[in-house]
């Protein structure tokens, strides 16, 4: 990929190309994708602001990753399982997890599906098979392998998808997971969202390889590198690997090159380590603007559509926040639930807040 210095990299397609690449529903698919991307971006902007105001404890934005997350959500089926990292909550929303439930999680309320047990952006949404995430890097990779193994044993048609970043490719479970999957030939897709930074560490210093995708060859299969800010290319890639996985192809590794357009998290100050022109380079690859510009250019999105998507996103985020802020925190007694299937011991006096 070439880096334009601040000027947007247009999507290089005609509508005919797009129909050819992602199918006859391309127009509706891309408009739907645009709506979800706007929701993700709106949520990120609002929550980062609330974090600064002290109204939520932490936030890990996925700004710049929207095309990958939305395409994953739109391309997978109900029976597929998602083993996410920090930046994939939008996948759960696209797959049907209600926004108000997710926002209850961000505020760690009594109505948080995971009972306020985890930091924000660590959701668990079992109704859409969005598996609870760990803050430990890469551990979900082997879990996806195990789930894919279980699917095959049960003769289920699902595919397991493990999401992780560039930093995770250095971790133990990346190697173990990719190796086990290759040996067993499992229906698993390893999705590396390479946003080029593991907190302060640039990807060039994470690994000496030219592409992270080529690591798959060490495990007996091939990987591909895809522009993760080009929604058409991302949808096309997901559609292909999911179809092949269901046909018994064995594992796939896809490296989506994206640009991290925010700090690592609300606790990070990237001015300490990113080059001064990083933000300008990242903006040239903004997946939302790239899609919006293309849709407008070909006449698939007009000003009224754009305003409608923005307004719906803004209102649904606002309403969800108001509901969550009016919800009490989890009860002290809930601390002792779910450690085991039944409590082994509970203190006689439950601590009070």
């Amino acid at each position, binding site marked *: 990929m070439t880096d334009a210095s601040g000027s947007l990299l247009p999507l290089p397609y005609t509508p005919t190309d797009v129909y050819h690449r992602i199918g006859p529903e391309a127009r509706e698919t891309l408009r739907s994708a645009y709506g979800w991307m706007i929701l993700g971006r709106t949520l990120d902007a609002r929550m980062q602001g609330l974090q600064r105001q002290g109204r939520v404890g932490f936030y890990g934005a996925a700004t710049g990753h929207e095309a990958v997350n939305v395409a994953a959500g739109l391309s997978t089926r109900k029976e597929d399982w998602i083993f996410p990292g920090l930046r994939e909550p939008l996948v759960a929303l696209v797959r049907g997890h209600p926004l108000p439930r997710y926002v209850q999680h961000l505020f760690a309320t009594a109505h948080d599906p995971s009972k306020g047990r985890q930091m924000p952006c660590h959701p668990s949404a079992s109704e859409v098979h969005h598996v609870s995430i760990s803050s430990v890097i890469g551990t979900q990779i082997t879990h996806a392998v195990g789930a894919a193994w279980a699917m095959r044993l049960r003769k289920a048609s699902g595919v397991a998808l493990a999401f992780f970043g560039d930093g995770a490719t250095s971790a133990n479970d990346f190697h173990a997971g990719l190796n086990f999957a290759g040996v067993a030939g499992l229906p698993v897709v390893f999705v590396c969202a390479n946003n080029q930074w593991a907190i302060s560490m640039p990807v060039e210093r994470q690994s000496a390889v030219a592409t992270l995708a080529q690591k798959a060859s060490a495990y007996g299969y091939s990987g591909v590198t895809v522009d993760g800010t080009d929604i058409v290319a991302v949808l096309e890639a997901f559609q292909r690997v999911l179809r092949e996985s269901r046909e018994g192809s064995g594992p796939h590794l896809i490296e989506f090159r994206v640009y991290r357009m925010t700090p690592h998290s609300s606790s990070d100050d990237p001015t300490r380590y990113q080059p001064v022109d990083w933000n300008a380079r990242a903006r040239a690859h903004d997946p939302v603007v790239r899609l919006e510009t293309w849709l407008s250019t070909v006449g698939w999105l007009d000003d009224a559509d754009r305003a409608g998507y923005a307004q719906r996103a803004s209102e649904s985020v606002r309403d969800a926040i108001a509901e969550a802020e009016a919800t009490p925190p989890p009860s002290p007694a809930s601390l002792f639930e779910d450690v*085991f299937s039944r409590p082994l011991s509970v203190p006689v006096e439950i601590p009070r807040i």
Partner: protein
Amino acid sequence: MSEMTLVQAVNRGLFEAMKQDPDVLVLGEDVGVDGGVFRATDGLIKEYGAERVIDTPLSETGIIGTAVGMALYGLKPVAEIQFLDFIYPAFDQIVSELAKFRFRSGGQYPCHVVIRAPYGGGIKGGVYHSQSTEAYFCHTAGLKVAIPSTPADAKGLLLTAIHDEDPVMFFEPKRIYRTATGEVPDGDYRVPFGQARTVREGEHLSIFAYGAMIPPASEAAAALAKDGISAEVIDLRTLVPLDEAAAVASVEKTGRAVVVHEAARFCGFGAELSAILAEKAFYSLKAPILRVTGYDTPFPYALENVYLPNAARIEAAARAVMQEG
């Protein structure tokens, strides 16, 4: 009932569980064609096939991470770690993932994996085939820890572990894999968790032990009996959940306690049990609680019999607690 060794009882338990439930599967290094380096999984692959008896590549984090994923999907994996000493590449998966899934997901993702691992010294295994590090796992909320000392308990506790709903660390005393023999009930035999076994009743002191320390504890009790000292020997069977009531009741009766394990002393399980007894049975105690344990050194090769507690050391501690009060 059939007479068998402890390792054969583990094997019978696995056969029984796989027969009962098609969701039970076994995975680990050399567990299939080879039948396990101790033969604990011998014959399973012939009966149940390579789909359910899986020889994995050599990676403990891969074995446990994969087992976690299988369990999240709804299967009941029984993972073997060839020696407890080799479990540490999977420690992250066990303490960060397996132990916490149910809690961190608010109950949405229970994760029931049984991890079997031979543990302990006395087989000339040196530094890396001898350790007893059960305390690491007892310290992590969300894990149950079972350690059988007899063939019947090996089968009965293993079947309970496999039918449990929580993660279970199942540590097998490899030193007595073949020397511990006994009658084992046929079929679906289960021993409940959290119920200690009274190996020998006594009046004057209580000896608490588990796993491979039960034979030397019993030997010490027999020697003490010759001098008119009546020692009660309690096999804890499961460290989590712990049968606190049985431990406290025994000390309330005898007034003296010796806690035995082959793991190192500092922050070992004996420290926890001693603290519980001090908190809950203090006014029954006639003498300080003594621990007989491995030393705070790495496990040695040439000097393993120096390191390991034996009947003589247990007997000496028992006589010491009898001196007081």
